[in-house]
């Protein structure tokens, strides 16, 4: 566990190509560690909202809701993984579902290792220094995207162009999934209403 959770993420963020290769072919990295990384990401966001310094924290304290933070991380994550798997299966990707999960989760490492310390450093910042805070957060996000790109490219054995195209398609498919989900939900709602109305009608008639 120590190996997978501490050494391997650091290996991933600094040497993404070889590490993701190891992830695919040497069976490095584990699902357990992936779940933990997602949990850490959620914790990083919650901590940021609650404890970031006054000068950078524009969150209304009454609006802080950890359940919402969990949802805003987990749902896009699941959508991304499912959409990417669906697309790459059709586009001759070699990656397995678990590999996509692992790659995406390990790519979140920079967010965890930048957000949590920056949250606490931001408490000791003056107005002029907050630029540094925002810079670090942007670097973390860009780093995350870079890792995700390399990871997807490696596990599916794609070219650069094909990776970019699949990633864009993945985002579109995420939208389609959300749309279909909403459609199904509203239809279920209507079916429920219909049955409930019949039930009520029967109650009144008898």
């Amino acid at each position, binding site marked *: 566990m120590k190996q997978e959770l501490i050494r391997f993420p650091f290996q991933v963020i600094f040497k993404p190509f070889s590490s993701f290769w190891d992830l695919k072919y040497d069976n490095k990295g584990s699902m357990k560690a992936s779940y933990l990384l997602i949990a850490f990401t959620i914790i990083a966001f919650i901590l940021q909202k609650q404890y970031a310094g006054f*000068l950078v924290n524009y969150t209304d304290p009454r609006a802080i809701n950890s359940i919402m933070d969990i949802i805003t991380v987990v749902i896009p994550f699941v959508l991304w993984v499912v959409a990417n798997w669906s697309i790459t299966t059709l586009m001759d990707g070699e990656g397995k579902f678990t590999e996509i999960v692992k790659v995406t989760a390990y790519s979140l490492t920079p967010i965890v290792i930048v957000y949590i310390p920056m949250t606490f450093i931001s408490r000791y910042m*003056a*107005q*002029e220094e907050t630029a540094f805070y925002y810079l670090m957060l942007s670097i973390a996000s860009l780093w995350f995207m870079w890792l995700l790109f390399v990871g997807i490219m490696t596990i599916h054995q794609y070219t650069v162009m094909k990776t970019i195209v699949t990633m864009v398609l993945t985002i579109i498919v995420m939208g389609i999934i959300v749309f279909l989900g909403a459609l199904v939900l509203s239809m279920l709602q209507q079916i429920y209403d219909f049955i409930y109305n019949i039930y009520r009608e029967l109650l009144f008639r008898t």
Partner: protein
Amino acid sequence: MRIKAMVSAIVMASVLFTTAWIDVVHASTPYEAYNYNYWEEAVASPAAFVPSRTVGGSDLGIEPFLEPNDMVIAPSGNIYVADTGNKRIVVIRPDWSLDRIIDSVEGIGAFGTVSGLYVDEDETLYIADSGLGKLIVLNKDGSVKLIIDNPQSDIIAAGFKFTPTKVAVDDAKRMYVVASGVFEGIMQFDTDGEFLGYIGTNEVKRDYYEIIWRLFSTKEQRSQMVLFIPTEFSNLDIDHKGFVYATNIDLNSPTPIKRLNPSGEDVLKRFGYFHVKGDIRFRSSVGPSIFIDIKYLGDGIYSALDSNQGRIFTYDAEGNLLFIYGMHANQNGTFKTPVAVEYDGVNQLVLDRAKANIHVFKPTMFGELVLEASRLHYNGYSEEAVPVWQQVLDLNSNYDIAYIGIGRSLVMSKRNEEAIFYFKQGMERDQYSVAYKRYRREEMKEQFGTIMTTIVIAAVMIIGLMIWRKVRSKRQGRTATYSAGRDQAL
């Protein structure tokens, strides 16, 4: 058992009495006073002004007012009411007795439609008569000093019809006139009635949706559309420095209130949390505030009258919203068609056209304290303002401006740690940063010895640990090779 009954009786009685008392207090304003917090939510606030009386024409022993359009208080305290429907100007003494009625001017005769008034220190009366199309200036004794009816200038179009609606005069006796049909800005005249020019043109707002729509429409359609023209000013007032406070009826503009310097630039300070534009939140069916009058209360404070919802918004010199009161209704102290707001140094007066009377609002303790503290702060007495702000906070602990005011004074007296707390309470980030930086520097200076000692000790410990580990690993390596050799030998 009996003790229990007695206790419950006392509790009941106290609850009853306190609720009764709260009811009495609550009933004193027909409107609900509120203010906006940092999160742009309307939160309840103590009322700053409460209705004290209403005065109509019959209270003065004269014919009731008929559609009065403007009201102004002279520096002497006399109240001048433009009783437009009755074609007269009613002058009321500060003790609410009738002073005189002006219903005609020698050489002109009766008034047309008196729509704007202004009085300066010499009790010279400036009358903007939009019906006659004249600006009439009367001396204190009622004799005509000046009449402007046809301003001449190269920049005025040939067939221009002068229709003054509002007027204000600065210390140098320059006249500032809002005229209808003039989109170039406020007309400025010198003492002799010579036209000096326009100041403060309202900028034309670009509507990109409209521009795109125009691209795809025919010439006939385009001619049917509304023109892009700047909005007119609705009213104006002059502050003690000779700057013009002007309001315009530009819906959805972030700057309906302007403070124009002599060269016509808008120099209003807008350092508050949000735009100086009245209501921040409103239903789309109700719409934004429409300012039709503005009154400078002195020391940078000004009140603007919103005709849309019948509210008076008072701002301080830095653009902080101090308080809001008033509403449209039929009770005493509420408005039907408010047209003018005035300030006599203590009370605020609002003229209502439809109700044809003057509403007098007296300040509450809260209102007085807020105004006093703002005045002290404006004049640089930040330290003296602190106890007043403290009292304000006792009455309304949500009053952010009070926290910021106290914080500023604390920063000046170098009590940075306390200042940080107050700025945080007031959600004032810039000032917080200043105070925090100072506090941090002080702390660093004070703790320098401790910090350096810790760093040195930590460095020594880390180096020691490294050396120790190296030594140990070397020793272990030696034993490992030794044991390996032994294994081989065996």
